[in-house]
């Protein structure tokens, strides 16, 4: 006979049984005798917090203490006092609750009986006024100076998966209230019968006030349990808000999708109800959002960006982490937004993938000025390379190179050959390929040419690699080669501004995120300033969100200040985000704070928090900011032209706010629309053209050089 023995261990399913301990606390002695007045220091809730600290809610444990209060009416109190006084009078002299004389009292029912016993005569002459101390003892805590008196019901309940655990928890709760024992004490009454358990549960769940017996308590007895834990409660397991924040302004607009409002997040209004608070477009000119990474800055910006895109405004969102665009896409996949949508995703680098291109040196736009292009590109690269004040030669060489190439591009465009424009990659060719440069120099004006013939050769050669290093970094990534390698720009932020495009830029995944971000933001600044050519009423409001401002500030110290001061004049509303305001230069910081009409912070390090808190004139303490939970902010905005006090805002996720606009099925159509909008080309095509671009340039310009006089094959010039 064989016996099969199962070797696999059978893991018992976790028990779902719950054991509940219940207790109602009632006064053990007549309720005129007071409990101990515990005071507020230390906080009597300290022990309760300690008892709660080990409650594992995730395992199904629960522990609750409820105090139900009903105020005792004055007339009831007065009646009670009369009865207690009468009782005290009858009782006669007493001490420590014991009667001092054995004699019978002469008042009340007993007095009547005694009088009848004596033949209807009473010993009026022997009646004495009661002692004050006896009256005071008789009234106990219910003396007229007692203040508010409450009828109280105290219920304790502990629940656990094991009966001993529930019992232990209940003992802890009872121990907390044992500290109130004084002249009187609280006696636990545990419901035993089914009826009494059901009655307890009904009271506990519903809030029904039906205490087992009358018990009136005064405020000094209850004070420790009448308020939330104070600063004197040093237990760590207490939910605290971190600090006081003024309430939201009563006239803060409520967002329901209005195009003239910008959503901020969930705000608790004066009636205690949470609504979506908003700032007015006319009031919000420049915003600054501070705080730790991962605490909701980007999400808040994304919510605003999607809202403004749906409202018809132009938006520009620099998404360095690349996640915001993926989240936003289904909410923007709608027919009225798709024709306006541009996507610059530098994570795409496969040869057959379609990408958009941008040539920062392009001169195709008639209003482009060479000096603006030079400044934008030079400052962008210098900021990304963190040159600061340490590389004046490199900065000058870069500016001169950019100037030369921009002038050549201008000629190419004027000559009807926009495909013969130089790109950023030609900066390296210009500096390192002397023959190529010298063949193009004759096309430049004399003053420009003089620099390259007279000054540049005298500079030390070690300055050139500092410049080409930036371009070399761009050249390491097919995505960046494709993005910057096309002579013609499909991406033109000025067009986006004027036409209300919705632009998402995701440099994530490329090897030079900071360089791309810097170039793009400097280009945004340049394009914003170029709106000088448009009368003020004709400037369409354009919203821009940019992260990691600190990286932009490292070189061009006045640049961010200029953005804060100038772009708003040209209807470009910029909202910048950074983790560390203190890392910004003093000039930038002052300009940002001086011009902000939205200042927001999520949780931050103490120094940062103290810095922001000072801006709010002490309305918020640094501790408040450091202890903000995730996705919660403190912010102040401009409202009706005046700055508000800071108020709390809870971040709202995109999914909740725009649930009606989630359209994942429309993403394929959206991608096709973006291909059309941005004239996207396959990566392989762009890279192939880039290989021959130096030769193409040379061919075009050499053809036009006076005296060259040949229309032959362009490649012959290279050879």
């Amino acid at each position, binding site marked *: 006979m064989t016996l099969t023995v199962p070797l696999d261990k059978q893991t018992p399913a976790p028990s779902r049984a719950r054991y509940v301990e219940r207790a109602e606390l009632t006064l053990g002695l007549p309720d005129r005798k007071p409990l101990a007045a515990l005071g507020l220091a230390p906080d009597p809730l300290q022990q309760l917090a300690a008892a709660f600290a080990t409650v594992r809610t995730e395992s199904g444990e629960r522990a609750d203490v409820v105090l139900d209060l009903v105020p005792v009416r004055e007339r009831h109190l007065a009646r009670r006092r009369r009865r207690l006084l009468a009782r005290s009078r009858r009782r006669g002299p007493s001490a420590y609750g014991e009667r001092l004389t054995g004699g019978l009292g002469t008042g009340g029912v007993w007095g009547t009986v005694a009088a009848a016993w004596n033949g209807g005569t009473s010993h009026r002459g022997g009646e004495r006024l009661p002692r004050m101390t006896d009256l005071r003892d008789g009234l106990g805590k219910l003396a007229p100076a007692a203040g508010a008196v409450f009828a109280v019901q105290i219920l304790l309940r502990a629940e656990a998966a094991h009966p001993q655990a529930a019992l232990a928890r209940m003992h802890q709760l009872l121990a907390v209230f044992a500290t109130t024992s004084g002249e009187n004490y609280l006696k636990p009454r545990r419901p035993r019968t089914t009826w009494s358990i059901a009655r307890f549960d009904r009271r506990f769940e519903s809030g029904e006030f039906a205490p087992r017996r009358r018990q009136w308590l005064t405020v000094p007895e209850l004070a420790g349990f009448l308020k939330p834990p104070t*600063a004197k409660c040093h237990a760590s397991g207490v939910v605290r808000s971190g600090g006081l924040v003024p309430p939201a302004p009563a006239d803060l607009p409520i967002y329901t999708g209005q195009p003239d409002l910008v959503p901020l997040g969930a705000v608790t209004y004066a009636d205690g109800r949470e609504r979506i608070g908003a700032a007015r477009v006319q009031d919000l000119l420049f915003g600054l959002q501070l705080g730790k990474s991962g605490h909701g800055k980007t999400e808040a910006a994304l919510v605003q960006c999607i809202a403004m895109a749906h409202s018809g405004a132009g938006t520009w969102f620099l998404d360095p982490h690349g996640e915001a665009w993926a989240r936003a896409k289904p909410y923007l996949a709608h027919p009225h937004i798709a024709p306006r949508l541009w996507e610059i995703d530098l994570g795409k680098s496969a040869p057959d993938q379609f990408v958009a291109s941008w040539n920062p040196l392009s001169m195709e736009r008639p209003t482009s000025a060479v000096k603006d292009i030079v400044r934008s590109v030079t400052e962008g690269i210098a900021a990304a390379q963190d040159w600061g004040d340490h590389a004046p030669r490199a900065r000058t060489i870069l500016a001169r190179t950019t100037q030369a190439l921009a002038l050549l591009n201008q000629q190419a465009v004027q000559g009807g050959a926009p495909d013969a424009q130089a790109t950023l990659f030609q900066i390296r060719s210009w500096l390192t390929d002397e023959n190529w440069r010298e063949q193009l120099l004759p096309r430049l004006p004399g003053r420009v040419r003089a620099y390259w013939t007279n000054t540049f050769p005298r500079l030390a050669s070690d300055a050139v690699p500092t410049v080409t290093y930036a371009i070399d970094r761009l050249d390491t990534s097919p995505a960046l080669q494709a993005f910057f390698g096309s002579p013609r720009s499909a991406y033109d932020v000025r067009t986006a501004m004027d036409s209300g495009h919705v632009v998402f830029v995701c440099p994530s995944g490329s090897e030079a995120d900071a360089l791309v971000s810097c170039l793009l933001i400097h280009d945004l600044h340049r394009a914003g300033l170029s709106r000088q050519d448009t009368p003020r009423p004709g400037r369409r409001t354009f919203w821009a969100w940019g992260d990691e401002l600190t990286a932009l500030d490292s070189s061009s110290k006045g640049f961010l200040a200029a953005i804060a001061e100038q772009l708003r004049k040209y209807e470009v509303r910029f909202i910048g985000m950074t983790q560390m305001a203190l890392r910004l230069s003093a000039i930038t910081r002052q300009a940002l704070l001086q011009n902000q009409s939205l200042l927001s912070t999520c949780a931050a390090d103490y120094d940062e928090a103290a810095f922001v808190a000072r801006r709010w004139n002490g309305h918020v303490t640094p501790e408040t900011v450091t202890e903000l939970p995730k996705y919660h902010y403190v912010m102040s905005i401009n409202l009706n032209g005046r700055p508000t006090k800071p108020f709390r805002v809870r971040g709202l996720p995109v999914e909740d706010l725009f649930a009606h606009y989630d359209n994942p099925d429309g993403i394929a159509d959206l991608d096709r629309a973006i291909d059309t909008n941005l004239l996207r080309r396959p990566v392989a095509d762009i890279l192939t053209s880039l290989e021959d671009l130096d030769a193409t340039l040379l061919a075009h310009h050499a053809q036009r050089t006076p005296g060259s006089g040949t229309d032959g094959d362009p490649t012959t010039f290279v050879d």
Partner: protein
Amino acid sequence: MFDVIHLLLGDPGPELVTVIPYAAGASPVVLAGWVGWTVHCARRARAALADRVTVELVPTSTFDPSEAEVARWARQLGRVHHAAGGVPARGSAVRLRYTAETGKMRCYLEGPRTAQAVLTMPGFAEVEVRAQEDRTSIRPVRFPAPEGPA
């Protein structure tokens, strides 16, 4: 009937003898009224208990009230019962609930919905009164035009 009265009470006097028959006749009416009133009160209490409001009291880390402040707060709590619109005490008590959630102590204030205005009124400068989830009026946004997908 008078014999029964005399039998039970001896000689109660002429006035009482006159009143007792009427009192006996009115007692069922009084009893019915009392029962009706009791049922009415019970119904009001039950209705109030079925519709209560909860707010969370979140103190700051520097919250340090004096006893006088707590006494003033107690007076405010007392108004919850009065603000309940005549609901009997059984259904209009204000409740302070201390509970543990993942090892953290939270303090809630509960009361009848009719007293919501009092419940949501901050009693201490450094205690934030937070609405519970059901107090949120946040709904997904609908842009006026053009409309989103159906």
